[in-house]
């Protein structure tokens, strides 16, 4: 994770398993009343207040491109990508862009808000029930009682076939 990433690390996550268990870290964020998790290995940084240059002739969910220190990064609105109504960018203070690097393809996603970073054992990731399959989700993680997050399928996000 890059050092300029501004994330609040959850303090409750201190307990270390006695046996070596395979753990991965996930960044959770909210979008359209859903909580998603994205593996932190993909996350480059989280930015706010960036002016987006709109691009013509692209699907609506491509909000445009931004200039991130000389690098041009396309921006995807996760809400629109999932077929939900877009949020009002002006009136939502907490929304931000998570910049991801997926197999050296850089892409930024607009989310309503970022929540926390959690460690989760790989074994705790369960597949999505067949009947509830949906786009961009490839697993579910139950963090504790009443708290289940959807795992964002980053590969599918940049996959040419499914777009």
């Amino acid at each position, binding site marked *: 994770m890059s050092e300029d990433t501004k994330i609040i690390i959850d303090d409750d996550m201190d307990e270390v398993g006695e046996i070596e268990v395979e753990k991965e870290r996930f960044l959770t964020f909210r979008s359209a009343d859903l909580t998603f998790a994205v593996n932190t290995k993909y996350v480059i940084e989280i930015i706010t207040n960036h*002016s987006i*240059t*709109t*691009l*013509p*002739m*692209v*699907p609506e969910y*491509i909000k445009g*491109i*931004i*200039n991130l220190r*000389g690098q*041009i*990064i*396309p921006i995807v609105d996760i809400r629109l990508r999932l077929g939900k109504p877009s949020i009002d960018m002006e009136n939502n203070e907490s929304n931000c862009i998570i910049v991801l690097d997926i197999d050296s*393809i*850089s*892409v930024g996603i607009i989310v309503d808000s970022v929540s926390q970073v959690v460690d989760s054992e790989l074994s705790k990731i369960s597949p999505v029930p067949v009947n509830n399959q949906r786009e961009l989700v490839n697993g579910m993680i139950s963090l504790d009682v009443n708290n289940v997050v959807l795992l964002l399928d980053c590969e599918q996000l*940049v996959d*040419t076939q499914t*777009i």
Partner: protein
Amino acid sequence: MDNGTDSMLDMYLFETNSLMEQLDELLIEAEKVEEFSTDDVNEIFRIMHTIKGSSAMMEFTSLNQIAHHIEDLFFYIRENGMDSIAPELKKSLFNLMFKSTDMLRTEIEKVENNEPLTENIDNIIGEINSFLNKISNTSSAADSPEDTGGNDGPSVAELNMELANCPDDDAPFFIKVIFEEGCGMENLRAFMLVNALQDLGLPFRFYPDDVENNSASAQAIVEKGFFLALLEEEHIEKVINTITGTSHIHSYEVIENARLKGAQAEGDPDKAAEAKPADTVKDTPAPAASTSPAEAPAKQAPASRAHSGPVKQSLISVNLSKLDALVAIVGEIVITESMVTSSPDIQGLKLDNFMKSTRQLRKLTKDLQDLAMSLRMVPVSGVFQKMNRIVRDMKQKLNKDVRLTIIGEDTELDKSIVDGISDPIMHIVRNSMDHGVEVTSAERVAAGKDPQAEIILSATHTGSEVIIKVEDDGYGMDTEKILAKAANNGLLIKPESEYTKKEILGLLLLPGFSTNEEVTEYSGRGVGMDVVKRNVESVGGTVSISSELGQGSCTTLKIPLTMAIVDGMEIAVGQSIFTVPIANIRQSFKVSNEDVVYDAEGNEIVKCMNEFYPIIRVHQLYNVETEVTNIEDGILIWVEASDTSYCLFVDELLGEQQVVVKPLPSYLNNFNIKNSGISGCTILGNGNISIILDILSLYEMAQY
């Protein structure tokens, strides 16, 4: 070599050396699997073809001849496949290849050092030919290939010994030491060397053996060299170490005592024979049979160090990615510079010294930018001038009266592109000379043409691409002949009658196609056009051929400009900012409603300079919200790209600016953004992004 050809020589050496590097790498890789793949064979064939051609041009006969024979050999292999060669012959094929490339390399080194080239190359050519005979005549494959090595070896070596004036001694190895020219007191220097060697405690003899007290021996050493006779092979290395550590030594050479070896070989032919090929493989740069292989690299190193002339140093090769990175950083600096100098924090302040410094900074960054750009941009004249020479030489060889007209040689292209199109252009020009132009001028006169044929080589900028044309006014292409030939070669994929003229001409670009049965020094075999196509496509260009039977033909290469920095006009449409390359803009003007006419479908058309052009409203096309929808409020930009011309309607012009082209993120390629009139984007001084419009594809898209 006079001064005029120096730059050509530079280019030739650079090109040939990189080809040799390529070849070496290929050979070494191929040897690991003991097999040449089809690609390898084609590649070697192409490399040899290029070396052959350019060496012929530079009149380096030995290089030309060797390459020519290897080409022949690989032509056979290409035709018959690698499988036609018996496995036991494959090994000797590799040996032969290494030997030949060594020979080529030695010759190239001689060119570099401005030494006369080897005149007698019959030996290597004989070997190549006998090998070719061997593989083409499988019945005689029983002849062990080692025989050639065994028998040839000593005779050549013996010849070399005589050339080297070896003294009479029955030691198995000699080292010939040559002192630097004019260093003086050669006899004493030789004696010092002898003393140093004696310290090693090795048995050796030296000739002339009276260096200590006979000052006349100095002259003999200058003329013939100083010889050390060694008894054991393993001593050679130690001796060489001492020699390299001694000053004023120009070069040295290890010579096997061939008289002795010849005698040995007779007694034990297998051993002598086996040793040879195996050794040559190990040491790629072994220059000739005269040096024993193990010492060859050692011998070469100091020799080239001593020789390295000015020819080698005037060109260095830099990894293109470094240049890319440089240009990108310079681009960032240019942007940052304007961010600093036009920072809102200092607006309205009167800062004399600051302004002075920023002016200086601006000038320097501008210089830096120009320099960075110029590193990558080279005029095509270098490539075009090469053609002059080719046409001249071929004119004489083929006895044709042709003049070459060069147009637009100052057109600049990215270095990598110029390199990439050099070969293709050479092939096309050769083809035109060889097959395009009529054999005799009488034929031309009979056809009502100027007795002197003309080949026009032209380069023109058209905004987003450079168009290079090679035109000749010769026979033109006979479509029926092409069809028949293609049918013969099994290249047709549908019934002959269904081929359009354009498609037929396209057949010429397929691999393995050649309309000329005869193989000449310059062209034929159909190696040309498919290689042309591949090379041009690798730089992102396209090739097309047009021709009228009896009037000549024209090969057009369209090469894209991958220029990293362009002069652009910033335009505003609503909140968005776009950049139109200045090269595409012909004019911008205001119009009144009355100037606009409508076609049957209600499309807007405007008249400029007595011609009508369609109007494309950027805000409509790209769905940009803007208040400027009345044609009188905005402004029209008349743009042109290759043969497309139209007017763009935009809100306002913001000004001219040099911009650094950044490709759009690869993620966006999923959305076919390349065809939506956008060629890239750029970062403006304030950090905002401007989208660079591609005038040609924008128009195409607007049609749908």
